């Protein structure tokens, strides 16, 4: 199994050196190879499992239960201006 480690890293926003990528490639391939054994199992006639617990989803009432906790929630943010999170410029 050939894995484009650089692409996977880019999608995950993880910076890798070439050496790290070269080292991780075979390791990732091993993991996928291991999990791929599952595809050999005969699943004919077995209903796909959507979730390990056979529970229906509980639902929430459409009622506001949360108030304004901005100061508390933003306390761990590196940079705030006028209540807005400040991030490096993103633009299309």
């Amino acid at each position, binding site marked *: 199994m050939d894995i484009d480690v650089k*692409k996977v890293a*880019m*999608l995950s*926003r993880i910076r890798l050196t070439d050496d790290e990528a070269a080292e991780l490639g075979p390791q990732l391939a091993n993991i996928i190879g291991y999990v791929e054994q599952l595809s050999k199992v005969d699943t004919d006639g077995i209903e796909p499992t*959507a*979730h390990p*617990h*056979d*529970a*229906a*989803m*509980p*639902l*929430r*009432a*459409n*009622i*506001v*239960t*949360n108030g*304004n*906790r*901005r100061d508390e*929630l*933003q306390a761990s943010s590196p940079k705030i*201006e*006028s*209540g*807005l*999170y*400040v*991030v*490096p*410029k*993103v*633009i*299309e």
Partner: protein
Amino acid sequence: MSWETVIGLEVHCQVNTDTKAFCGCSTVFGAEPNTQTCPVCLGMPGQLPVLNTVAVDKSILTGLAINAHINLESKFDRKNYFYPDLPKGYQITQFTVPIVEGGYIDIPTKDGGEKRLGVTRIHMEEDAGKSMHEGLDAVSHIDLNRSGVPLMEIVSEPDMRSADEAIAYLKQLHQLIRFLGVSGGDMEKGQFRCDANVSVRRKGEPFGTRTEMKNMNSFRFIKQAIEFEVVRQIEIIEDGGEVIQESRLWDSVKSESRSMRSKEEAHDYRYFPEPDLPPLRVSQQEVDAIKAGMPELPGELRKRFEAEYGLSSYDADVLSQTREISVWYESLVAAHPSDPKRCANWLANELLGRLKEAGKDLADSPVSAKRLAGLLDRVGDNTINGKSAKDILDDMMESDDDADTIIEAKGLKQVSDTGAIDTIILEVMAANPDQVAGYRGGKDKLMGFFVGQVMKASRGKANPGMVNQRLAELLKG
């Protein structure tokens, strides 16, 4: 050989719930930035989503209204991508099994017929936050109040063959969701946004390569963007080139689109089942109950208004634009049953026009259906003429008085007494001998002048029909 355009549309529509899709935060628009957030919609570790029951019901209602199949079991998945307005690093959406599949919307065609356009699916998902770049140099600002607001993504089949068909579909859908009360549909507030997949092909050939025009929120821009894209693609192919599959962004200032390269790279969303949410199950009984509560839809209503009240198709269309207007209209007819057409005219033209000028909705109308009916009763029994009635409606907009009180107070009772009208006419004729001579000499057009003078002399109170009749008689000499 002639070219054919193929368009498919994806509409992101905010569901108008009080709270977000997966937490108890308010969804009120325009609040101070980041005051409507919590650990769940901020994507903090260890938090678990719990789906809003009203978002489910409204998605089902929308599905039923487009004659679609409701999946009694549907599933949620994670769509993974990095963007600062998406704090979890993934969006919870329905990828493999959406709640709604396979419906349709009929649009009117130019020849008076209908064209059926397929809707592939409606899935539930959550909105991202809002990024702001304007006036900022090296940074962007993020407001996460919108993060987690419930959305329906309504995906069409590639069934449209022109920008006009695409717009007709969108308008129909936009009307429907507001009618059902499942979304505010306010495009300026981003409650109804559209992506358009556009390709061209020579007639009879397989689909060409498509491009995706992202995130447009005005019917006019969508039309311009599609038309621009069609021309661009045909030029590329006719020059021997190939259309590249990509996302493009419409620039409404320059009236052109440009490629969004960053989206292209990130297009690998690595969907996987959302482990925090078990499957969503709804019972057939629940679906049936939602169906039973479904309001009459715009198309049905339009046809009924034409048949039952004898309205023109234009008036029927105006009065079925929103559920609110249609309900208001029918309560007006109930209070003034003698003339449903008069009701239609006065609501569609006079009242809605005045409300628009005042920047008000029908819900905030200072004049109730009952009060307007009281005015129309007096028009109907010829107590007042149309001109006075309009002035009275102006007064009613500013006061709580009913029509009879205003008529009495201002002495606006229409003069329908032949003697009184003749007296005024004879005065007007005496004051304008030249015009009388002109009229008698064959200048028929002067009739309008006399009508105007008589109405003015009666301070608008003369019965116009009688004025015309008596003038014709008396001017003969």
